[in-house]
């Protein structure tokens, strides 16, 4: 058996916020008609959380659902369970017009921790990340500098960034540079 490793093996940086690669995540792309009761029931059963509305995520610990587009969800599970979850979801969606793909090894995730976490995001994205707009549980696809990414507010001081694994190094360096001491903006 080969041993799965994340893109940057958990590399971290402590600046005015902490930036760390969050390690391996099980991620399954689900495409289908999200307004269909059968699809919502199948996805809800397998994920254990309710299907979120637009630009939001529902999660508890390593399990959750993130809204990606009007016909796409991202299902999160512990990395080791991705294969089994994919099988269960395929079975639950049998007969429905839907598609499920294991994208766990095609993604990288970063965790940003610290009070000025919005400042760091705002340096890199055109998305509105101000309090009151980008609140707890908000999940938004956007770009960070030159690459597409999803940003997710986990709590008042924690955000997560999900991007393609192929740009993990670029993303880490970007976040670490934006988090360098002396770079505080103090806007929010």
């Amino acid at each position, binding site marked *: 058996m080969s041993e799965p490793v994340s893109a940057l093996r958990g590399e971290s940086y402590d600046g005015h916020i902490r930036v760390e690669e969050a390690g391996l995540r099980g991620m399954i792309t689900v495409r289908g008609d999200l307004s269909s009761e059968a699809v919502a029931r199948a996805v809800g059963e397998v994920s254990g959380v309710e299907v979120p509305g*637009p*630009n939001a995520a529902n999660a508890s610990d390593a399990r959750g659902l993130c809204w*990606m*587009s*009007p016909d*796409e969800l991202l299902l999160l599970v512990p990395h080791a369970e991705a294969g089994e979850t994919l099988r269960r979801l395929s079975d639950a969606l049998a007969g429905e017009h839907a598609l499920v793909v294991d994208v766990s090894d095609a993604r990288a995730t970063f965790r940003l921790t610290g009070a000025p976490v919005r400042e760091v995001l705002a340096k890199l994205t*055109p*998305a*509105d990340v101000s309090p009151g707009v980008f609140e707890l549980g908000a999940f*938004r*696809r*956007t*770009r960070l500098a030159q690459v*597409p990414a999803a940003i997710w507010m986990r709590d008042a001081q924690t955000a997560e960034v999900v991007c393609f694994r192929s740009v993990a190094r670029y993303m880490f360096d970007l976040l670490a540079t934006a988090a360098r001491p002396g770079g505080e903006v103090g806007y929010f």
Partner: protein
Amino acid sequence: MLILHCPNCGVDADETELAPGGEAHLTREGPGSSDEEFEQYLFLRENPRGVHFERWRHAMGCGKWFHAARCTTTMEVFGTYPAQTSEPPQEIRDRISDRRPGWRWRELS
């Protein structure tokens, strides 16, 4: 800098999150069309100064296509609307008439 409201995900998207898709409401001519129709589809565009209808894709967001009506000289945005339509909704046309009385675009006015 343009900010367009994406009707698919509800986000007010900055231009840098979007990919332009050119002129809206083209008829895609196929087999059986005349040379003139095919030329029209492939090459001939309005390229107006003023009111224009365009396709945009929320490329670095929800990934979906939509339509936008805007003014090419002032960058004023009259509105955005779903991709699944072959002409702008009346509500958008009314808003343009309010702002640009006497506007014309192809056979629309």
